[in-house]
């Protein structure tokens, strides 16, 4: 099977390409890119018909991408697929479908399932299930501690060998500093990142939103920024001590950005991610007590949003991940205190990221770096590029076309989106994952 994607604006930061052209895909791999040399020139028009076209024209599936960008498939390094154990919230099947709907072709799934992904058996289950039912590539993230219980290290070598590409106790912090130290040290054997969910559980206990003026007037228990920042500071300190590879998940606060910026300036081996909701929303939107806005870490203030944007701009924050946390409607149709934390994010992430381009926080290339290239680099996976020979993972996106978010039509089982009803630009028209075409038009 051959696919020819024609007339798109091809952007591949890794090859420093941003030009109109055609892409040929063969057997699930990218075979060749032919670029228009000079816009409108005779030479270009001649060149536009790729050399490879002549031979087997009838065997090609041709996709017209005119008016769209053609980019490496997005890579989400922070996804909750919920399976095994919470199939009523999401499955590998529905989660990966949501991923491709959002332009993602690879997702890295967090281990806080039931059972926790702390054994070969669970990792292999995820991989097998993905081969059977998945729409995109899934890279499992193993637990740092057995059962995410913060007591004993999981068998990291076994997990790595069976397919895990990073370790995290996400959903919970590694509260025990000694265990965190050892995780950062031990994981150096395999050159994999330790992804830290930074939260001081004593400080955050009972909290359901950002602590500040808004929590005061809503009478909801607040989670201070310090609960995050203290752990960011601790982990940066441990990272310096051990020389391990630290990745800070879901950065939400100004203070965290500052700590990470300083650490990078001092040469500490750290990377960091934020999520669309941390640069798109402020805690004032919680006035309605809408549980779709309940997320951990919580949505912060205008000041934090500005700091996150600045961090994205100056490179302090390397990655935009979704922290896709789908929930069943029953888990959100509840008292605010009792509702589950999390946002179903895969199907809105790119369009929210695109707003940063509109605001001149990032340019398009930087956005693609943060949502595809850099996460691939951090996870050491062969994704995030349109180079010849690479997996045929691409997204074809119409930047000008806008749409109204309707979470009831999400392909994810989780309809829990605070962006429901928003009008966003950037419609994913097609996603190609491992050469398979998903057409959303």
């Amino acid at each position, binding site marked *: 099977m051959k696919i020819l994607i024609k007339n798109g604006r091809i952007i591949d930061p890794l090859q420093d390409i941003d030009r109109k052209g055609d892409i040929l895909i063969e057997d699930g791999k990218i075979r060749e890119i032919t670029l228009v040399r000079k816009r409108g020139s005779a030479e270009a028009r001649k060149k536009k018909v790729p050399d490879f076209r002549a031979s087997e024209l009838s065997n090609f599936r041709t996709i017209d991408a005119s008016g769209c960008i053609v980019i490496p498939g997005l890579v989400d390094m922070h996804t909750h697929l919920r399976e095994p154990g919470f199939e009523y919230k999401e499955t590998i099947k529905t989660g990966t479908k949501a991923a491709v709907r959002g332009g993602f072709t690879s997702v890295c799934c967090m281990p806080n399932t039931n059972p926790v992904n702390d054994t070969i058996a669970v990792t292999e289950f995820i991989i097998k299930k993905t081969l059977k039912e998945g729409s995109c590539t899934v890279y499992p993230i193993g637990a740092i501690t057995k059962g995410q219980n913060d007591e004993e290290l999981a068998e990291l070598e076994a997990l790595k060998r069976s397919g895990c590409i990073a370790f995290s106790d996400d959903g919970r912090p590694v509260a025990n500093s000694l265990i965190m130290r050892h995780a950062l040290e031990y994981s150096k054997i395999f050159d994999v990142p330790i992804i830290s969910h930074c939260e001081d559980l004593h400080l955050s206990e009972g909290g359901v939103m950002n*602590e500040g003026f808004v929590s005061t007037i809503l009478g909801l228990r607040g989670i201070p920024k310090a609960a995050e920042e203290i752990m960011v500071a601790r982990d940066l300190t441990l990272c310096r001590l051990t020389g391990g590879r630290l990745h800070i998940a879901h950065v939400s606060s100004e203070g965290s950005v500052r700590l990470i910026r300083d650490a990078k300036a001092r040469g500490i081996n750290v990377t960091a991610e934020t999520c669309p909701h941390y640069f798109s929303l402020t805690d004032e939107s919680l006035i309605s007590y809408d549980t779709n806005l309940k997320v951990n870490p919580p949505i912060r203030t205008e000041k934090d949003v500005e700091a996150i944007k600045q961090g994205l701009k100056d490179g302090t924050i390397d990655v935009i991940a979704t922290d896709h946390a789908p929930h069943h409607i029953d888990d959100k149709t509840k008292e*605010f205190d009792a509702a589950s934390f999390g946002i179903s994010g895969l199907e809105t992430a790119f369009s929210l990221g695109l707003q940063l381009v509109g605001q001149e926080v990032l340019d398009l290339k930087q956005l693609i770096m943060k949502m595809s290239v850099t996460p691939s680099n951090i996870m050491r996976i062969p994704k995030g590029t349109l180079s010849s020979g690479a997996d045929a993972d691409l997204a074809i996106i119409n930047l000008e076309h806008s749409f109204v978010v309707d979470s009831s039509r999400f392909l994810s089982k989780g309809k829990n989106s605070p962006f429901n009803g928003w009008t966003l630009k950037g419609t994913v028209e097609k996603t190609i994952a491992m050469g398979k075409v998903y057409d959303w038009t």
Partner: protein
Amino acid sequence: MFKAKDLLGIKELTTDEIYYILETASGFKDVLQRDIKKVPPLRGKTVVNLFFEPSTRTRISFELAAKRLSADVINLSTTTSSVVKGETLKDTALTIKALGADFVVIRHSSAGVPHFLSRLLNISVINAGDGANEHPTQALLDLFTVLSYKKKIKDLTIAIIGDITHSRVARSNIYAFTKLGAQVRVICPPTLMPAEVKSLGIEIYSNMEEGLKKADVIMTLRLQLERQSKAFFPSLEEYFYLYGLTTERVKLAKDNAIVMHPGPMNRGVEIESEVADGPQSVILEQVTNGLAVRMAVLYLLAGVKK
């Protein structure tokens, strides 16, 4: 006059609406002094008291207010309802609606529950206390009580003492008294001061003596005894030493200052018996006024088209 079908909080009320409720309450207070205290406006209406938290005075006050207005009253509390069987709040609410209730009076430990019910139901929802958010009828009865002694609210100095962080009474009173032009001070240890509360236009004190100076109204709040275990303060003794309302401290306020407490009191913790039972205390008057205010709220909401 009243447009909203619900009473969710003081935050949501205009000054005019507040005064209107207080005037109406004044009429009902007269009714309550008659020999026959029952009037017919809510005949054929059903009020459900849905209490997910223990409460005696608020529930009884709402129950009696509804009965004085000739409504039928059902009391549902966590110990007797299906909640113990695992029913969700949504299902409980829909059941109440299906039974044909006209009002639901809700008390819940989680902030925002009245708002949740308000969206779910087309009947009147009255907030009888939600988490640390609001307790609007308490603030209304406090306004009513202060008005009856001071004849005005504007420019009075109101000192609220105690656990502000966890107190819905404090919040509703801060909104109520500031809306009507009083100067509100809150006095508490910094551990029990909510974040950025100063932005509400109030003064904050951690020194009891300074905070009480020249106050017209002293309102002390119930201290939840379990707060000690979370290190909000070291001991009840120390709390009383720093923030207990004593006869000596009452003297720092104006001579004609009144002493209020939303109840139930911890005698010897936040307030000395001598003060609670003393000549400046209006604590029992608050209870009586609560009945009139709740009658007024039920009566006014009954007139709103839904």
